[in-house]
């Protein structure tokens, strides 16, 4: 179905992600996992299959890529679109329409199918994806998982032979991953060819038949899944790959930091126009020092909690008690900092140094040097923040929060889309931050939690379902949550 003959590619204006001498043959009906470190060329490979290279992203291409018997270089993108359907990483930016029905129909409309047939296909594919109750909604009201369902349905409605998924789970919670798994299983049963580039491996071991490992733009190994499963956990670490099974997780023992507590009181919030409160916590006691993981499904109230904690939510009346001090919303806004999932939103200046000086609160020059050193930013201080890599940007944001004298640091999905090596680095950094500050992490990444968190806050329906120390018993609870999710789901409306 797909054939690569001695393919090399280099982007016109970037060094990373280039490919060298790739030869590869994927048979019809195969389900292939592409893995490897960040920047190894996984995404580039998927772009060659769906024709975005060379038609959209420019660069030097040599060799031959044949999909469904046609050379992708010779056919236009809209013809490739009939054979190959693509699902991308970021659910925010892969929709053309603003309503769900229009979006699922969009691809078929482009193919020029008659309206009756399109209606039929929209119904069928949304039923298959379990998205029938999402029809006719605005995409801005959907959660990440729901958006990804719509994306799958809209690709599926075009009935391509090949499906290409580029890190489809990096914004998804455990239930949404489970749903996506079912979708892919269905495509597989229909005999479609499926290519998945992904960092998280644990949901794919039962699904994929073949694993291709890329390193620096070359295929290092290409093996059946059976063989891949025989690699030892240590071997996986060497390849910088994430864990294959959540059973391998073990926690890091820390001497429990007894001492101060932080009490959140009257944490209630409901958005305008929605009746049941999104957040409804009478009182919650959390350790003051340490790293606290906030887990739960999409829509459980995690982001609302973090926004309220950072004092970003106007009309929020709760407060935070710490020892004898009581902090109101406005004081929390001064004392806390949210590192967003898209760090680009919070970098404003022309150089890293200027960025760090902005909003520096009484910290002196020595402190600036110390923080820059500890976060490995000294060499980058002249660079423009937007020219840095994702991890570097994240460190700049952290440094600016530290220098502004913030005490509560909240992270929204700090490791989505990171490979093992980068995830572990982030985990170390978060752990060391937690020795001095209160660090809260909203995450769907169990591997990150076991590497840096001391405490877990599990949220459900706006309230606290459970909270526990991450020890032997806590690990079992955590593992149970990530293996099973919350099956009992009540659809809204």
């Amino acid at each position, binding site marked *: 179905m797909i054939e690569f003959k001695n393919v090399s590619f280099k982007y016109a204006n970037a060094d990373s992600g280039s490919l060298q001498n790739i030869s590869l043959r994927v048979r019809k009906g195969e389900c292939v996992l592409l893995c490897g470190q960040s920047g190894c060329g996984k995404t580039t490979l998927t772009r060659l299959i769906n024709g975005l290279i060379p038609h959209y992203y420019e660069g030097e291409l040599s060799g031959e890529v044949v999909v469904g018997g046609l050379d992708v270089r010779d056919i236009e993108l809209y013809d490739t679109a009939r054979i190959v359907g693509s699902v991308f990483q970021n659910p925010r930016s892969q929709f053309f329409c603003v309503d769900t029905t229009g979006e699922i129909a969009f691809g078929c409309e482009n193919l020029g199918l*008659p309206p009756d047939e399109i209606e039929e296909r929209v119904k069928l594919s949304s039923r298959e994806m379990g998205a029938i109750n999402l029809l006719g909604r605005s995409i801005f009201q959907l959660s990440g998982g729901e958006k990804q369902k719509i994306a799958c349905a809209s690709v599926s409605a075009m009935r391509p032979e090949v499906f290409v998924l580029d890190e489809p789970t990096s914004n998804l919670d455990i239930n949404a991953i489970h749903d996506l798994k079912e979708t892919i299983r269905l495509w597989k049963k229909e005999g479609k060819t499926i290519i998945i580039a992904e960092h998280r491996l644990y949901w794919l071991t039962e699904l994929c038949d073949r694993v291709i490992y890329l390193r620096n733009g070359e295929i290092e190994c290409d093996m059946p899944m059976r063989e891949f499963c025989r690699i030892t956990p240590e071997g996986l670490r060497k390849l910088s790959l994430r864990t294959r099974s959540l059973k391998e997780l073990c926690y890091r023992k820390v001497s429990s930091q007894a001492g101060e507590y932080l009490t959140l009181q009257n944490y209630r919030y409901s958005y305008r126009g929605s009746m049941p409160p999104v957040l409804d916590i009478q009182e919650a006691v959390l350790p003051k020092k340490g790293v606290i993981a906030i887990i739960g499904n999409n829509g459980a109230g995690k982001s609302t909690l973090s926004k309220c904690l950072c004092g970003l939510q106007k009309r929020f009346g709760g407060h935070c008690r710490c020892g004898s001090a009581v902090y109101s919303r406005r004081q929390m806004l001064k004392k806390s900092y949210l590192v967003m999932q898209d760090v680009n939103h919070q970098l404003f200046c022309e150089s890293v140094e200027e960025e760090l000086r902005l909003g520096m609160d009484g910290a002196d020059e020595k402190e600036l040097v110390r923080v820059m050193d500890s976060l490995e930013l000294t060499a980058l201080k002249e660079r423009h923040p937007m020219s840095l890599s994702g991890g570097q940007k994240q460190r700049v944001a952290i440094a600016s929060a530290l220098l502004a004298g913030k005490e509560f640091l909240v992270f929204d999905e700090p490791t989505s889309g990171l490979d093992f090596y980068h995830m572990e680095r982030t985990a170390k950094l978060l752990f060391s931050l937690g020795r001095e500050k209160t660090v809260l992490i909203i995450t769907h990444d169990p591997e990150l939690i076991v590497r840096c968190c001391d405490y877990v806050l599990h949220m459900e329906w706006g309230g606290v379902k459970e909270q526990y120390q991450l020890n032997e018993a806590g690990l079992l609870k955590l593992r149970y949550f990530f293996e099973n999710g919350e099956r009992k789901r009540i659809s809204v409306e």
Partner: protein
Amino acid sequence: MSLGILQTTGQQRGMILDPRTKLLLLITVSTFVLGGLGGEKFSSVIPALCLITLILLLTAGRIKAAVIYLAAYLAAWLAALLLLPQLSGPLYFLVLGSVGIFSRVMPGVAMGVYVVSTTTVSEFTAAMQRMHISEKIIIPFSVMFRFFPTVGEEFSAINAAMRMRGISFGGGRIGKMLEYRLVPLLTCSARIGEELSAAALTRGLGGNVKRTNICCIGFKMQDVIFIALCFTAFAAVALVYLGVL
């Protein structure tokens, strides 16, 4: 600007008008209220058009937008009626100018909000295709419909980030404030735009087959009424110019 104002929800869009009717209404409101077509003789048309805009916003369930619009318009009108006679000198001209601009621009903006917030991308595309407008024009316009709410989302995230850093207006740093807001907004918008086009292209946009559309658009009773109203207004102006009326 509140985030929800430009977002189209699939359901509950009140009285459904054909996108073409909406465009015609938008043009009519702009030419008469903003452009002042017809001069003094047609000054009575203006309140009627303003009222239509208000009613449309209300039927679409945009209560908040409607209230803001009504309040702003009434304030401008009252200022012209009560405040202006009391003033003199430069202050008079200042108030006169701002009241004039406000009462002329507001209805057009309100109608624009109504059109954008009640039309889905596919309806808009369908309407443009019925009018036999080239794809080269339709696609950029439909991307615009998609892009406004996205920029709104980005903007509110950036705003939150700035508040946490304690950056706010004051201290005469208005230039800096704009820069801090625009730099991340532009980079994020550029990236989203790029990813958006890539996604649209892999779904076969821009092919050589004729696009179909599942949207049922068409003129209904209410469309006929509004179109008749608009044409009457324009016809009256034409008659005045020809010297008939």
